[in-house]
């Protein structure tokens, strides 16, 4: 199979994730879209690793997974805390930084 198809899939996943971050209000969904973008990047890494015949890209994708795992812990903690205090998981309600 043509290796470019993996890259098309990666680009499509990344775009879906980016659009999701921008258009969705629910913080959990936004979070899921961020994960989607990270995994799209991972897919691209692995594809290039295969293309170049070395393991650099696969190592990089492991790093990404580790960082994403940490991020999930911190991010979900923040979302839960906000939900507890405001009874809402909408990102538009949490616009306090402006004021």
């Amino acid at each position, binding site marked *: 199979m043509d290796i470019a198809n993996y890259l098309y899939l990666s680009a499509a996943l990344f775009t879906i994730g980016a659009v999701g*971050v*921008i258009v969705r*209000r629910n913080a959990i969904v*936004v979070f899921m879209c961020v994960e989607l973008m990270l995994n799209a990047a991972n897919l691209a890494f692995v594809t290039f690793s295969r293309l170049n015949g070395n393991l650099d890209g696969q190592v990089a994708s492991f790093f990404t997974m580790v960082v994403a795992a940490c991020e999930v812990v911190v991010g979900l903690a923040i979302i839960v805390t906000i939900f507890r205090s405001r009874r809402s998981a909408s*990102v538009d309600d*949490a*616009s306090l930084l402006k004021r």
Partner: protein
Amino acid sequence: MKANNYLVYLIALPLFSAALLLLLGRIADKWGHLLATLVSASTFAIGAYEFFAMRSRSGVDRAITQHVIQWISVGTLKVDGALLLDQLSICFVLLITGVGTLIHIYSISYMEHDENRRRFFAYLNLFIAAMLLLVLADSYLSLYVGWEGVGLASYLLIGFWNQRPAYATAAKKAFVANRVGDVGLSLAIIIAFTQFGTVSFAGVKAGAPHASSAALTAIGAMLLLAAAGKSAQFPLQSWLGDAMAGPTPVSALIHAATMVTAGVYLITRSNFIFDASSTARLLVVIVGAITLLFGAIIGTAKDDIKKALAASTMSQIGYMILATGLGPIGYAFAILHLLTHGFFKAGMFLGAGSVMHGMDDEVNMRRYGGLAKFMPITAITFGFGYLAILGIPPFAGFYSKDKIIETAFNAGGNKGWILGGAALLGAAITAFYMTRVVVLTFIGAKRWDSMAHPHESPLLMWLPMAILAIGSVTSGFLLSSGSALVHWLQPIVNAGNVEGGKELMKPLTVSLLALGVVVIGAGAAIIKYRTVASEAPSNISIFTKAARKDLYQDSFNEAVLMRPGQGLTDTLVKTDHNLIDGAVRGVGWTLNTISSAARSIQNGYVRSYALIMVLGTLALVATVWLVTL
């Protein structure tokens, strides 16, 4: 030259006394005036001692110096704080301390009811110290210190009653007019330093023959500007009339006898500059001739007795300046006239003060009349001064003023006729206005209202007047018998080489001519002012109107100097406000507007931040793609 250790006390004593009186404050109220008078008298004693010591020496040993401190030592500029007492300075030392002491005595009584009498005497002592520093300095820079010191004392004393705004303004006016002259003096010092590398009198004198004539003319012109400022000469004369706002003893001491003659001293002291530059000499005689007529004309129209005398002072100093411009022999006659003028003008000012004292501070001569009966001593002493200024023999002015007129005629050619004619005309007008003062004040019908009780002044006031009157009678004869003063000043002004030059007129002719015009002038005044109204008439000729307004000198200054100056500052203020402030405010406004616009991006919505991030990333990728394409 010998060294001597007493000179510094001449300056230190009055300076110390002034500082003491000012610092002690009210504690010194009871005895401040006595201390100041005592100090002034002791400076006179030192001066007299130095004079006799100087007379007992001969030739080059007469001039003495005292090195006080090494004042400035920067690169090639070395100025020692040294004092120089020679034949010229001793004349001034005796005049300043002598007349100064008499006026201290007079002021004890004159200022008796003033609650700030102690402060007044402190300023008087400050003036004595500064004036002595001025005449004892051995370099232009030290002279400059004294020059500024007397300006300060003059300012403080003119504005002594500064609770009246008009008097405070008069003091400021005097200070500003003097400042213009001071610029001239500092420029002269700067040019002298660049030319000669030194500012001491001896150094400049030694260098003068080798300097370029342009430099000498520039120094001479700047010194003349300085002299014009301090001595109220054309075109800086306008402050002297207003300076009469000060207490009358101040007018007598500072604005008649001593400080205003500092210009004559400066030119005489710098004779080596003026001898070497005929252009500078010409400027000096022009200024002198204009001022002597200018002052005399103003004097004819003033109803304020002190302002009439001030105009007369201006005119008489014009004579002295004229004389200093007439070459070596002129310097000696200028100093001769300066000394005799010091006596008779100070005496007349004290007389005017005595009249004001008896007439409840009334200064308008049209409200006097017939006062000779009530104030006989004042009238007699004033009369002696009057005869002296007219130049009636054997009074002092006869010896000094006729010499100046004679020297002016002998200047030769058209110049001689013009200068001599101006001096002679000035003498006639002097006779006219001085007779007017005497007739209006002491003779004729009484024009004061019934509230006034004219009375003779107390002993402490008339005694100094009497001593000055004796001086008005005798000083001219004593100083000029056997050309005493001319020979005395010979080493300074180098006058000998012109004696016996060509004479346009014999001394006797000049004296008779001068006497003739004086009689005409005096007679005209007697006829015109035998009877006057107690109010100044208003239907007057335009000449009288001009003379009453000081020949429009204030209007001239206002139109030519003040208004354009104000216009300039207005323009500068507007430029500052609109252009410079505008630019600064514009920068602030621009930044503010840009940041307001930029702030609207910060709306707090995570999604819009994310969008901006995506757009930014897209832009970045697009840029990289385009560049690498």
